[in-house]
């Protein structure tokens, strides 16, 4: 297959775009597309400071690389979740993020959850009702809180994540199956800032995961290949598999699903019900981040509970659970 632009050997065929490109032109194309989406969805301007949430994976490091190449002021945030027992996952991902930052002379903030909050994510999950079956819920709650807190503390106006199209449509698919209209109403390339919350953006939201992976490989970005050990059996992976089987038969269906959703949402498809009250957000008396709970936010409640259980052992309880 030949590159559509120059006729050299193509390295990637994007059937949904009917476009195949060589290495050189693909490495130009992807940042150009990203810039197009940044501008189309008014994600941020060149004079804004951006905090990129980096996990050490291909999407977040690829995004950070693209933003840097496009000339944006982008610093990174890595959150050490303490997922190491038997896998070394957090250690490896941290090393990848740090190595990338050092190689590109970029600023990387590191937040160490076990050191700062008193337990690793797997430990915290075992000690809470929220994390009863899987750490993902505690993990997500913790990461969102820390990302927002750090962005606010250090004066970043925008928080960028490496979510790609496959991530977006997997979530969209799941929320559509259950008609989770509250979540659907908030899904999109940009989540506007609200009092206490910085703006959140997903510059890769229209890029296929395969494109993001190809970019990282072709740029020589060293990223962690292994999945989080707790991702096994995740619903999102199942949905991605279903959607990719559809894509194999009908190239472009994932992108079409997402773009049609955005169009429908912009057209008022998910307007709140008449008379529905907007949740009242008040600052958490503990951490100051907005919450609808009327008291302490769910992050503070969860971690207060974790620390309380760690410091008051019950009979028969394993006080040093793995992870």
């Amino acid at each position, binding site marked *: *297959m030949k590159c559509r632009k120059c006729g050299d050997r*193509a*390295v*990637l*065929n994007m059937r949904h775009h009917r476009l*195949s490109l060589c*290495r050189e032109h693909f490495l130009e194309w992807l940042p150009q597309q990203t810039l197009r989406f940044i501008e189309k969805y008014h994600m941020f301007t060149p004079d804004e400071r951006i905090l990129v949430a980096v996990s050490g*994976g*291909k*999407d977040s490091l690829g995004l950070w690389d693209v933003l840097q190449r496009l000339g944006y002021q982008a610093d990174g945030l890595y959150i050490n979740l303490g997922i190491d027992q038997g896998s070394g996952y957090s250690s490896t991902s941290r090393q990848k993020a740090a190595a990338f930052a050092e190689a590109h002379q970029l600023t990387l903030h590191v937040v160490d959850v076990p050191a700062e909050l008193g337990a690793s994510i797997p430990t915290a999950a075992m000690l809470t009702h929220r994390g009863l079956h899987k750490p*993902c819920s505690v993990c*997500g709650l913790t990461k969102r809180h820390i990302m927002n807190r750090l962005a606010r503390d250090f004066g970043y106006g925008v928080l960028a994540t490496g*979510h790609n199209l*496959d*991530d977006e449509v*997997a*979530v969209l698919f799941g929320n559509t199956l259950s008609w989770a209209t509250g979540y659907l109403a908030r899904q999109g390339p940009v989540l506007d800032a609200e009092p206490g919350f910085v703006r959140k953006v997903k510059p890769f939201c229209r890029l296929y*995961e*395969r494109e*993001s*992976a*190809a970019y990282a*490989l*072709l740029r020589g970005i060293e990223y962690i*290949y292994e*999945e*989080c050990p*707790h*991702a096994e059996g*995740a619903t*999102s*992976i199942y949905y*991605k*598999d279903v959607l*990719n*089987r559809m*894509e*194999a038969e009908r190239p472009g269906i994932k992108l079409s699903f997402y773009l049609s959703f955005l169009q429908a949402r912009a057209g008022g498809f998910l307007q709140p019900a008449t008379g529905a009250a907007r949740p009242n957000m008040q600052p958490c008396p503990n951490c100051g981040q907005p919450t609808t709970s009327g008291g302490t936010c769910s992050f503070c409640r969860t971690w207060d509970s974790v620390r309380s259980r760690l410091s008051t052992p019950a009979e028969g309880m394993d006080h040093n659970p793995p992870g």
Partner: protein
Amino acid sequence: MPAEITLRDQTHAVASGSTLRHALEKIGVNPDTVLPTRDGELLTDDELVRDGDRIRLIAVISGGRQ
């Protein structure tokens, strides 16, 4: 010597002569979920599988995010 396609720790022997896409479908791998490489170079899925090829697939799908 037959060609081999490796994904993570699984290696499949495949016949030469077909396209990579066809070979992947035969071994039950969705081509949209992997990036095929040979000697460190990315391949498009219309490439013909040759005798003795050692093709390594890089899985691109990650998960567990909300």
